[in-house]
């Protein structure tokens, strides 16, 4: 096997091994299966075309994910000149923990841990896909991809403070959606917004 054929074989193996993660990230970013598959396929094509810029093969997973994210963001910029900002005054500080936490039960069980035990993957996916674009993207980049605030700020071309505020609002919205789903499903009863006392 010559060197170029070996490179091709390596690239093929590496891509197929990463396919579930690549598709998962694409799905969380785009919010639908068809767009996710198209985005992943385009990222693979771009990675092949620019493979000479990859200096260390062990960095291939992060490199390929970055290509996918940049493709998604550039498509999105082309579609909308300015990301919409949503007014979330009532939900900006929503905390699922505060709704679930019962201090007097601390010693023999915890409602919030039980809630997480019962949380279904589909519930979480539905809640993330329901987030407005600017918040979903930041939550996906931070919590699904594990990017730093600085990397997210550079990818989105926004100040780091904007990343922090979108992430806080996105997570609060996500928790509100999970809470509403739990109430609608009869798993929880809506209660007034009472914050627990701290030690």
């Amino acid at each position, binding site marked *: 096997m010559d060197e*170029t*054929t070996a*490179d*091709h074989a390596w*690239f*093929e193996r590496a*891509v*197929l091994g990463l*396919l*579930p*993660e690549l*598709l*998962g*990230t694409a*799905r*969380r970013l785009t919010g639908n299966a068809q767009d*996710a*598959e198209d985005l*992943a*396929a385009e990222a*693979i*094509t771009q990675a*092949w075309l620019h493979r000479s810029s990859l200096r260390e093969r062990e960095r291939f997973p992060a490199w390929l994910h970055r290509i996918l994210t940049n493709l998604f963001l550039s498509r999105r910029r082309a579609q909308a000149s300015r990301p919409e900002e949503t007014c979330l005054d009532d939900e900006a500080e929503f905390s*699922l*923990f505060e709704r*679930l*936490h019962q*201090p007097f039960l*601390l010693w023999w069980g*915890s409602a*919030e*841990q039980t809630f*997480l035990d019962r*949380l279904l*993957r589909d519930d*979480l*996916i539905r809640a*993330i896909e329901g987030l407005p674009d600017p918040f979903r993207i930041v*939550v996906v980049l*931070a*919590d*699904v*991809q*594990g990017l*730093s*605030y600085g990397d997210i700020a550079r990818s989105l071309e926004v100040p780091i403070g904007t990343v*922090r505020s979108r*992430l*806080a609002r996105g*997570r609060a919205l*996500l*928790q509100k959606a999970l809470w509403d789903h739990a109430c609608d499903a009869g798993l929880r009863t809506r209660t007034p917004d009472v914050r*627990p*006392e*701290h*030690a």
Partner: protein
Amino acid sequence: MSDPNPIDCDEALRLLAAFLDHELHLDEREGVERHLQVCRSCFSRAEFERRLKGEITRLRSEEVSPGFEERVRRLLGSFSPA
């Protein structure tokens, strides 16, 4: 030994997200860690947020349909090694 500069619950919760995201400077991180060692309520909150973040991270992987895998294999096969 007592903590020379203890932070309260409000400050710990304000810093919690950045703490869990590994985005705090060393002195802030140590302040939050010390608070979580002595405050059961904030510790429970931190554990809850950490677990929820972990559940979201697990969404990174998606089941690949046979149709999409075949599409990718054909795409890879179309790339010229040269």
